[in-house]
């Protein structure tokens, strides 16, 4: 037994084979392999998502077998061999095929899970040349993906195994819109070379950790830091609210800003920061935070909407009466009268819980002070908003703050809010040293925003003929301790609660309610997915009550170009919702018949069901300006620089915006050089949220491209029909029968270094809503509808989604592969929300208690792209990011009703909730029979 290896705090030297090279490292033997790979050996292709074996992002091959490198101690691998994503390139031709296939299928979106997927797939394909789909699912079942919905990953692996002929990956001809262009940032993602928030460590940077409140609400007193610092060599500084030089109050909506970097004497939610500790990264990391001098006195906390609204409830913010942050409403017609006169009225209540974004990349970044400027490189969805808030917190000018967006490993709304940035900015500003921070998974789940829990009450009426007559909708949203995006949810939901239907009489009233829980913020859909769960189930009940097929009922009531919305907006053109429903009709009829036949003959515990749900969603801010400015420049080498400030969080804006710009310039994609959303070099394209980047930034890019082409033609004295060959320092212009050359080398360049610069701003035209919510809140809406086919085990209450058909009116499909990727990813999140996802503050702050769908949970998704061009969107295009997630959950819930005749009013429809509902319904049935 001589090989037992005691481990202690002393470092050892050991060697192992890494990517076919022998390496020596010096480390504490119990250090995680993932950490040594990333931070000592610089191989940041291996991502860390959870440090607990729950996500598989850190998968490497250990002696040819996939393992989670976060669960392997470096001391355990002496003389073993390790292969990371960076080392896979030495395994051609298999890995070339895999990479190519991932790119071609759009299997990498944000790219944070991609290395783990590629390593797992390599192990599979090296052992089995033609695996089944089930074997592929088993192989990647241990790697979580939050973006893709897995189907494109599965297809890519199967395709790589089949060794089918490869297709060319990019287009080198003009006219790229509508083509399946491979994402322009894809290569870095499949090589593991993309730089995410945690992937860069500036030399000599300090580490930072935050002391957070362990209670839902607590008063606290900070103790003596001098003693603490003396006892903890290597800890250089402690920062608290006293150290914030500027106005210590931030928030994504300035009018509602209410959040301090650190609580002062009372923490309003579990996970709220009270202090930051900065110093030697190794010391900071090893620090036992429970030794920090702070004494807590737990206070009674408000956790629910009811507690917050109770008479005499303590106010979470003194200036917000009754703990109401704000509300929203839309009124049209006379809803009470219309309901009284309706032939059929249905009423119900629905409730949803907190949902966690569960981005595979936890929040991370670093800050560096350069003179009187601060630079922050971190993952973010909103660089210019970060800039404004950091400037305010530090008390410096906006221009003194530079935000360099790192690649974002999943955002879905949560990375619109500040996370690490205030801490690292403050510390780097004060200490004049680079400071880096990486959230742990626990910290990320504890302290970052969630989807709002909703409590919704609704009544809807219709005529005998099946026409919707009225909807009365009330919703309260639990918005947590700070405002975040609560006002946006409260404002957006009343505009959308009719669904994509003509509802002549309408009342929708919402409130965002403060509680002592982590702030609820933006999450793909800003409250509309919750709302659709209520509204689409209620309309299903109306259809059933009327004896009308649920799909035909929706077709009968669908909005069209001429009918007014509930805010009185008439689109005029581009309303494709009816076409979406009609596109589902054939498969719907077949599925309903098949399902009914199955249920009529089965003797086992399985029932089948099919459900449908529709959706509409306004692109961009609600009645507020949200411009994007795009700058493009013709460089002396004949290439075109595109300053693309729309942060690509995996959804594909780098590619979509370039495709639109390229079409306007009439140049091939290959001629473009993307310039990132760095605030020092690229104008403001607003935030990546509200499904606005294709519409707003895409349009600005198209306008800028059009202007650049005009300027080039003018310079070359060519006609509007001329064809310009870019990409070389001498442009070649073919104008009818004439060809001429235009040398750029000798021409003067402007302040940006460009021969010609073109800059355009687009702000979608909207109007303010009046006191009844009437007006034009959005310039463009996206429309869509899903059907979901399920099987349900009535003895166990488990649901398996068998198939989803998703029809979306995207106006113009700029890049069908990327759109399908959004749809499939949206379906996965909708499925998770419907069946398994609920976050309980203070419990289960990890990815094994909080469940998101795995590869084995995702059904095949058939995407049907409908193109009813918007007159405002670029080439008619509309948004798809949030639209994709909205109909899935209500379609699944309607399918559950179709299967067993029971409404699940509280989601997620977990096995125990479904089974309890079945037992309750059986008990009622027995009672009725008596």
């Amino acid at each position, binding site marked *: 037994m001589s090989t*037992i290896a005691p481990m202690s705090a002393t470092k050892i030297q050991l060697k192992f084979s890494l990517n076919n090279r022998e390496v020596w490292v010096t480390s504490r033997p*119990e250090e995680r392999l993932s950490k040594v790979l990333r931070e000592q050996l610089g191989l940041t292709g291996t991502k860390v998502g959870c*440090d607990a074996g729950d996500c598989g992002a850190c998968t490497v091959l250990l002696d040819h077998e996939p393992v989670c490198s976060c669960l392997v101690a470096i001391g355990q691998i002496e003389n073993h061999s390790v292969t990371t994503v960076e080392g896979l390139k030495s395994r051609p031709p298999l890995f070339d095929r895999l990479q190519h296939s991932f790119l071609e299928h759009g299997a990498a979106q944000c790219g944070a899970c991609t290395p783990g997927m590629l390593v797992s797939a390599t192990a599979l394909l090296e052992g089995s040349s033609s695996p089944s789909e089930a074997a592929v699912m088993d*192989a990647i079942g241990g790697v979580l993906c939050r973006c893709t919905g897995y189907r494109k990953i599965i297809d890519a692996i199967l395709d790589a195994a089949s060794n089918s002929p490869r297709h060319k990956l990019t287009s080198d001809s003009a006219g790229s819109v509508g083509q399946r262009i491979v994402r322009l940032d894809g290569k870095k993602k499949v090589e593991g070379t993309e730089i995410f928030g945690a992937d860069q460590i500036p030399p000599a940077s300090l580490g930072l950790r935050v002391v957070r409140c362990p209670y839902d609400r607590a008063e606290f007193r900070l103790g003596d830091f001098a003693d603490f610092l003396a006892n903890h060599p290597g800890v250089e500084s402690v920062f608290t609210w006293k150290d914030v030089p500027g106005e210590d109050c931030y928030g994504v909506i300035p009018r509602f800003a209410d959040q301090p970097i650190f609580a002062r004497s009372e923490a309003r939610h579990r996970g709220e920061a009270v202090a930051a500790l900065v110093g030697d990264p190794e010391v900071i990391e090893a620090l036992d935070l429970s030794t920090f001098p702070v004494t807590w006195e737990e206070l009674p906390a408000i956790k629910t909407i009811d507690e917050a609204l109770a008479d005499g409830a303590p106010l979470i913010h003194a200036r917000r009466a009754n703990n109401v942050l704000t509300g929203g409403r839309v009124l049209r017609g006379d809803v009470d009268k219309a309901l009284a006169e309706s032939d059929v009225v249905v009423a119900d209540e629905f409730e949803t819980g907190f949902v966690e974004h569960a981005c595979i990349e936890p929040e991370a970044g670093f800050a560096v002070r350069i003179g009187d400027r601060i630079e922050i490189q971190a993952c973010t969805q909103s660089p210019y908003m970060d800039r404004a808030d950091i400037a305010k917190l530090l008390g410096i000018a906006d221009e003194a703050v530079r935000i360099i967006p790192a690649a974002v490993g999943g955002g879905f709304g949560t990375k619109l809010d500040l996370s690490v940035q205030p801490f690292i900015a403050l510390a780097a500003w004060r200490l004049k040293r680079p400071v880096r921070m990486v959230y742990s998974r626990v910290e990320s789940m504890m302290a970052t925003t969630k989807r709002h829990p909703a409590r919704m009450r609704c009544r809807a009426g219709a005529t005998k003929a099946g026409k919707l007559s009225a909807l009365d909708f009330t919703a309260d949203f639990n918005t947590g301790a700070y405002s975040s995006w609560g006002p946006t949810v409260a404002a957006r939901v009343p505009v959308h609660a009719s669904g994509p239907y003509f509802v002549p009489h309408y009342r929708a009233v919402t409130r965002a309610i403060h509680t002592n829980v982590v702030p609820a913020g933006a999450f793909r859909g800003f409250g509309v997915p919750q709302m659709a769960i209520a509204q689409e189930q209620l309309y299903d009940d109306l259809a059933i009550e009327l004896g009308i097929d649920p799909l035909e009922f929706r077709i009968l009531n669908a909005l069209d170009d001429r009918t007014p919305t509930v805010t009185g907006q008439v689109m005029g053109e581009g309303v494709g919702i009816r076409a979406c429903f009609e596109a589902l009709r054939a498969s719907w009829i077949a599925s309903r018949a098949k399902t009914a036949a199955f249920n009529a003959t089965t003797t086992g515990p399985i029932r089948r069901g099919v459900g449908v749900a529709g959706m509409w969603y306004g692109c961009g801010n609600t009645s507020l300006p949200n411009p994007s400015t795009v700058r493009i420049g013709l460089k002396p080498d004949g290439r075109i620089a595109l300053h693309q400030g729309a942060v690509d969080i995996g959804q594909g804006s780098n590619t979509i915006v370039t495709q639109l710009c390229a079409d306007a310039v009439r140049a091939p994609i290959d001629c473009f050089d993307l310039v990132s959303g760095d605030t020092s070099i690229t104008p403001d394209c607003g935030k990546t949220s509200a499904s606005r980047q294709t519409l707003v930034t895409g349009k600005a890019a198209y306008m800028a491209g059009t202007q650049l082409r005009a300027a080039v033609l003018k310079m070359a004295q060519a006609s509007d029909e001329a064809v310009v060959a870019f990409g070389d320092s001498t442009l070649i212009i073919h104008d009818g029968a004439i060809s001429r050359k235009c040398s750029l080398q000798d021409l003067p360049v402007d302040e940006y270094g460009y021969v010609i610069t073109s800059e355009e701003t687009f702000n979608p035209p909207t109007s303010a809503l009046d006191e009844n919510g009437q007006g034009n809140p959005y310039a463009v809406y996206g429309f869509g509808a899903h059907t979901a086919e399920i099987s349900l085990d009535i003895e166990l209450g*488990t649901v398996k989604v068998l198939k989803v058909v998703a029809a979306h009116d995207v106006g113009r499909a700029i890049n069908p592969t990327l759109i399908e990727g959004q749809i499939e990813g949206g379906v996965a999140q909708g499925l998770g929300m419907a069946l*398994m996802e609920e976050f*309980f503050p203070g419990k289960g702050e990890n990815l094994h208690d909080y*469940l998101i769908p795995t*590869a084995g949970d995702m059904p095949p998704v058939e995407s049907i792209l409908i193109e009813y061009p918007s007159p405002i969107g670029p080439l008619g295009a509309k948004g798809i990011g949030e639209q994709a997630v909205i109909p899935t959950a209500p379609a699944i819930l309607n399918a559950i009703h179709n299967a067993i005749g029971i409404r699940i009013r509280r989601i997620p429809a977990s096995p125990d909730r479904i089974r309890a509902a079945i037992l309750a319904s059986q008990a009622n049935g027995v009672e009725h029979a008596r």
Partner: protein
Amino acid sequence: MLATRGGQILAGGTDFFPALGDRAVRGDVVDISSVGELRGITFDSNYITIGGLTTWAEIIKAPFPRCFEGLKAAAREIGGIQIQNRGTIAGNLCNASPAADSVPPLLALDTEVELISRHGTRRMALADFIVGNRKTLRQPDEILSRILIPRKVENASSTFLKLGARRYLVISIVMVAAVIQNDEAHRVSAARVSVGSCSAVAIRLAELEQALIGSPLTKGLSSLVRPEHLRNLSPIADLRATSIYRKDAAFHLVQRALNICARGA
């Protein structure tokens, strides 16, 4: 080292590291992962012996007799492939989670465990070894060296059913393992049925097992299951499910497990 200074044992790391949460490793750690003697599977006339460091991936591939199908099925449900490649059988037992996937099938195999220390070795039934939620009889200076399965019911049909809220990487809400042996007359001659995640320690349903003996091994077997056979389960309510649900689901899963064994017999 264990004997003199104590320390946490590190083997596959699949429980060791997650248990740290946000914290750094503290105290001494004893890495036993390269102790060759603790690895591997041997067959002798009385026992099949599995070394404590044997991984789930190795168990899935091993040429076990038929009655191990349930254990293999459980091994395939433990985490993902990454976890199966590292996680060890002794680690799963010593961690003693009420939701440890290997415990019900090992209980159904009448498994014994062997503990070694410098004072010698001792052996006990797995059912005696795990005494509570994350509590075992292992002393700090002991290592669970071997898992011993008596070769009594090798041709029995066996199964393992796991209920979770998603397909992969899921902690069990309820799990059931069954090993059913029949005689020449196709009647049940030995029955072992165990349920996990429904009590602090997975348990065998002794009354049910008694009730099954002598019954024809046909689909009707499941109709012998009575709610009172599950009375020793004491499931908790947690994030994953209510206690009522767990007990109800356990009943149905026990029935299904018996049906599967009957079908396979």
